[in-house]
């Protein structure tokens, strides 16, 4: 009997014994949505840990040179000295995957930065002001949406030549509409709330209402959009590089590596598998985190 009772006794912060039944306690602690979101966060972070570890190793130690060729070791299958095998020039794929990571992530961040900031500007203004501003904001979004990303990439490469910045700017512009729509819908929703009217009544300026009051409301939503955009940017960069429109030959990104592996896919499948797998891991990881964030924000909206 004593033992049974003790099970229900808990001490709270002030070291006082409280008698809240366990069932109730569980209800307070977590709802089911919270659990799912937590699981998704956990999986996402675990997946993202793999590229992070690779990045740290890359900073400290590279087993092989990334560019020097070694013809005697062409197309070596994965073994203990070359974990992921070698490519057509006998370069170690593990080293190349590791050293391709920073640039891949840099490009992805750059793309999202351009897309998010411009999307925020257009989306916030059109969502808050509505009317004519909203009309033209939407038309800009539609116009951008109607251009295929590959065509935009070709346009930039044809005009400015191959390069990292061309890829970032071209894809960044392509990412504006998706961000714009997320942000616009958030601003549209919250600018109809009564507190915005109350803010106008106390004489708050439009800038103040937009940045101090409306922007924080959509922050979680934006975070999940960024996590998703991050994954999409890696994919978009890969597909551009795959078509040969991406970063120059001398630079290593995972998309570039995939493109190089295209020619001897049946001879040495491992040269495509390693970068492809890394892309999958990174994309999945940020996708899970994005989903978790989305569920957290939904839960917050409910309460």
């Amino acid at each position, binding site marked *: 009997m004593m033992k049974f009772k003790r099970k229900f006794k808990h001490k709270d912060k002030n070291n006082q014994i409280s008698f809240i039944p366990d069932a109730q306690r569980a209800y307070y602690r977590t709802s089911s949505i919270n659990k799912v979101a937590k699981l998704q966060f956990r999986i996402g972070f675990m997946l993202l840990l793999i590229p992070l570890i690779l990045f740290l190793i890359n900073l400290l130690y590279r087993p092989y040179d990334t560019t020097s060729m070694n013809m005697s070791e062409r197309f070596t299958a994965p073994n203990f000295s070359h974990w992921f095998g070698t490519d057509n020039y006998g370069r170690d794929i593990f080293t190349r995957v590791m050293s391709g990571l920073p640039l891949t992530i840099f490009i992805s961040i750059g793309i999202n930065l351009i897309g998010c900031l411009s999307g925020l500007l257009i989306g916030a203004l059109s969502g808050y002001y*509505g*009317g004519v501003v909203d009309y033209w904001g939407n038309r800009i979004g539609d116009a951008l949406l109607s251009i295929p990303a590959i065509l935009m990439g070709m346009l930039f490469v044809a005009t400015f030549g191959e390069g990292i910045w061309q890829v970032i700017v071209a894809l960044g512009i392509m990412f504006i509409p998706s961000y714009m729509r997320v942000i616009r819908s958030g601003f549209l929703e919250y600018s109809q*709330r*009564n*507190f915005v*009217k*109350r*803010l*106008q*009544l*106390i*004489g*708050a*300026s*439009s800038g*103040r209402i937009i940045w101090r*009051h409306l922007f*924080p*409301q959509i922050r979680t939503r934006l975070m999940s959009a960024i996590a998703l955009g991050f994954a999409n940017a890696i994919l978009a960069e890969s597909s551009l590089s795959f078509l040969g429109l991406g970063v120059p030959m001398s630079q290593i990104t995972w998309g570039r590596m995939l493109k190089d592996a295209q020619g001897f896919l049946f001879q040495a499948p491992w040269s495509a598998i390693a970068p492809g797998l890394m892309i999958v891991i990174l994309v999945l990881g940020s996708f899970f985190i994005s989903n978790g964030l989305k569920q957290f924000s939904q839960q917050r909206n409910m*309460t």
Partner: protein
Amino acid sequence: MQQDLTKAEYILKVEHLKVVSAQGAELVRDVSLKIKPGEIVGLVGESGSGKSISTMAIAGILPEGISIAQGKIFFNDRDITRISAQERCKINGNKIGIIYQDASQSLNPLIRIGRQIDEVLKIHTDLSPQERRDRVYGTMRAVNLSNVEKLAQRYPHELSGGQRQRVLIAMAIINNPELLIADEPTTALDVSVKSQIIELIKLINFSRKASVLYISHDFSTVKKLCDRVYVLYQGIPVEVGATEQIIKRPQHMYTKLLLESIPSPEKRGQKLLTMKARTRDYRGPAVNCLFAERCPKVFERCRQELPDMFKIDKGHQAACFLFDK
């Protein structure tokens, strides 16, 4: 606070205000009202009579597509119908304090109460953070909130409805406005809290020398609070007078019927009078008396002309041909 050297006779003077929607519907047809310094004026009317739209026009926050077609609004002898957004920001929250209906929706759910009240000071004054905090606490106490240090750290959803309404009132009066506009501040509240809020508005009027424009459809609160009352019907004031005159000796048929339809102990056992329902929602220009279709004493002239305000008593006017002598 800044004092105008030449004190205006009327703190707020609205002249022939007409507000129309983009489709041309007349939401407010011809409203004229005057508020003297220190006066509490009530604006009464049924839903859709243009009470809230009039206040929005005064505050300059008309929704998109709705605009002032005619008329002028003078605040301290200055026309505020066509001022710029910056000028508007200087007046709202500083010289005109506005309490909005539906307190639960009027606070930003992500920001603590204290900071939200503080924001009004941040916008309009350049006090130091210390002074601002003292003033926020002081104003919160003035609106009968207790335990203010703790309350300031709370989020809006942690407060009760009455507390939220008090917070909104605190925001409206923190800059000692000359005019306080209360747009149905008691709608979402229960009866006991309602009377507390009414007392509070009275107190603010007395202690801070603020004129009050009180908008309501509830005669019981108007009776307790107001010095003068405007009765609005379909965007036109039909009767104006001191509260005493309006409540005790209503002259216009609309006011009479409105007051008759309030249940009271004296009318126990009798059938309550009800008005004929409105047959249509007419939003075109007014050419005849708008109340004619529901008026029990309607006669030929009502269907042909629009009545002016006819004087009945000192300060008591009604827009009805019965008083055209």
